[in-house]
């Protein structure tokens, strides 16, 4: 349970209220400068809130009124930053052993290095590691000290694309393996969807919306929240078949969709569909055609020059069209339309069961 206020002289001020999951990963999602890192640092005790309260489980870490401010070292947080802060004078295994008691050292360090897949690098110095390897060691070091919560501040953003993809997959496995509550700061949708259970949207110096990640990303409940996530449907789906030409067929809540093959052996995905990629045609759709969906109009929102139509075809999604198009289609709540989505416009993000 977190409710903290912090302001910077002549700068932004923040008031964050959110609840963290007891297990699983809460993503703090929002644009740069929205205060995500500040919130994480307040959790770690590295920055001090001006007011408020931080309680993790039964432990009160900060209470402005009662003058409680538990020191960082006593909070037991596993903190991993964007640029890994490995101790340059220690080799990999001494880095991982830093927060481990002497009696457990040997077993715990070996176990952790194996878990993050760098067991063969134990004797290396940090400057001999790649960016991805450094982050793996940072994770191992954070978890080896047996924290009660993991704080991950954009752990993948300093990596090149290949290292990022590989570490993102492994980080998901790792987070489940260590079964610690985690808070992940990111502004990357794919990272949020792949790793998060809950998401808190951060913007305008506060938490705009919090909830299960697919729900929040599909159904932002305010204009501000929609601005942070973009108007995009996020639908849990499963790959049912693949073609040699690189297409996959998906089962999305009983609806069949065709999209580009995300590759590898990925079967569980989030299908993401942006509202401005959806084309509406009058009348009901032929049942067999590819990505031509028979949809019912649920709501119509006027948004300046555009109109956003909320639709349902078995899953909820939206279409963003011009006012002229809306008039031509003569839409009202309950009308049936044919929604057309090109296969490349369905963006697939791997998810875990």
């Amino acid at each position, binding site marked *: 349970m977190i409710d903290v206020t912090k302001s910077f002289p002549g700068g932004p001020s923040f008031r964050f209220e959110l609840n963290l999951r007891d297990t699983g990963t809460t993503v703090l999602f929002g644009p740069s400068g929205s205060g995500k890192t500040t919130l994480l640092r307040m959790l770690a005790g590295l920055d001090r809130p001006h007011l408020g309260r931080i309680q993790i489980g039964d432990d009160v870490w900060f209470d402005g009124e009662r003058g409680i401010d538990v020191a960082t070292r006593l909070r037991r947080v596993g903190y991993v930053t964007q640029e890994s802060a490995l101790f340059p004078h220690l080799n990999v295994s001494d880095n991982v052993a830093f927060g481990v008691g002497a009696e457990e050292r040997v077993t715990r360090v070996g176990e952790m290095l194996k878990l993050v897949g760098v067991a063969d690098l134990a004797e290396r110095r940090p400057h001999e590691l790649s960016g991805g390897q450094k982050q793996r060691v940072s994770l191992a070091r954070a978890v080896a*000290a047996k924290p009660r919560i993991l704080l991950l501040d954009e752990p993948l953003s300093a990596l090149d694309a290949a290292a990022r993809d590989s570490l993102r997959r492994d980080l998901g496995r790792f987070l489940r393996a260590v079964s610690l509550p985690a808070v992940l700061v990111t502004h990357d949708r794919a990272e949020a969807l792949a790793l998060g259970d809950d998401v808190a949207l951060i913007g305008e110096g506060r938490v705009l919306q919090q909830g299960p990640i697919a729900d929040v990303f599909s159904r932002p409940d305010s204009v501000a929240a929609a601005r942070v996530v973009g108007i995009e449907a996020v639908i849990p789906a499963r790959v049912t078949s693949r073609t040699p030409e690189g297409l996959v067929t998906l089962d999305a809540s009983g609806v069949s969709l065709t999209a580009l093959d995300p590759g590898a052996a990925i079967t569980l995905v989030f299908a993401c569909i942006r509202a401005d990629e959806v084309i509406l045609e009058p009348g009901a759709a032929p049942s067999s055609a590819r990505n031509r969906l028979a949809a019912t109009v649920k709501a119509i929102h006027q948004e300046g020059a555009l109109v956003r139509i909320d639709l349902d075809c078995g899953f909820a999604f939206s279409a963003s069209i011009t006012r002229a198009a809306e008039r031509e289609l003569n839409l009202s709540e309950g009308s049936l339309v044919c929604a057309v989505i090109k296969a490349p416009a369905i963006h697939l993000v791997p998810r875990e069961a």
Partner: protein
Amino acid sequence: MDLEALRVSLVLAAATSVCLLVIGLPLGYWLAFTRSRLRVIVEPIVALPLVLPPTVLGFCVLLALGPRSPFGQTLERLTGHSFAFTFEGLLLASILYSLPFAVQPFATAFASVDIRLREAAACLGSTAAGVFFRVVLPLSRRGVLAGVILSFAHTLGEFGVVLMVGGNIPGVTRTASIAIYDSVQALDYTAALRTSAVLVLLSLAILAATSHLLGGLVLPGAKRR
């Protein structure tokens, strides 16, 4: 050549360096990281010997150690003898005189340790002392070594302070630089030249060894190779 005086100089320089290591590490750490307003007062006091004429510093110390000052009286009561014109008094003056040459490189080295490393250590459960001894100090060893050597070399070369505080007692407070001055006064240029040559060679050797050890110059602010 006055070997006795050279010995006094070396012992004094070594003792000063050791004392400054003990005093300078916590003081440097405090100066590097404190947010206290006291810093505005402490920092100039530490740096004062850089600009003050050594004779002024020596004179102040002499007055402080004298039998009429409360400090001198306390010292005398504690140790049973006066500190003026003794090796201990000279050591005290040398510590003050070389203080900035130790504390400044220490503090600069500590402050240049990435704050994220200190934060990482704290998150991993380290106490402030643990952060210092396991992270900050090992990463500052070049700066610490530079501070120790600079204070050693600086003490070796001091003259005005020694003249004021130490007097000129052979084997006790008569250092090499005083011996050289005396030789010149006595027109014994050969002796002065010999002692000077030893000091020059010794200082060069120390600096060369340090430069080799650190892989670069030891002057504050100088970049390593």
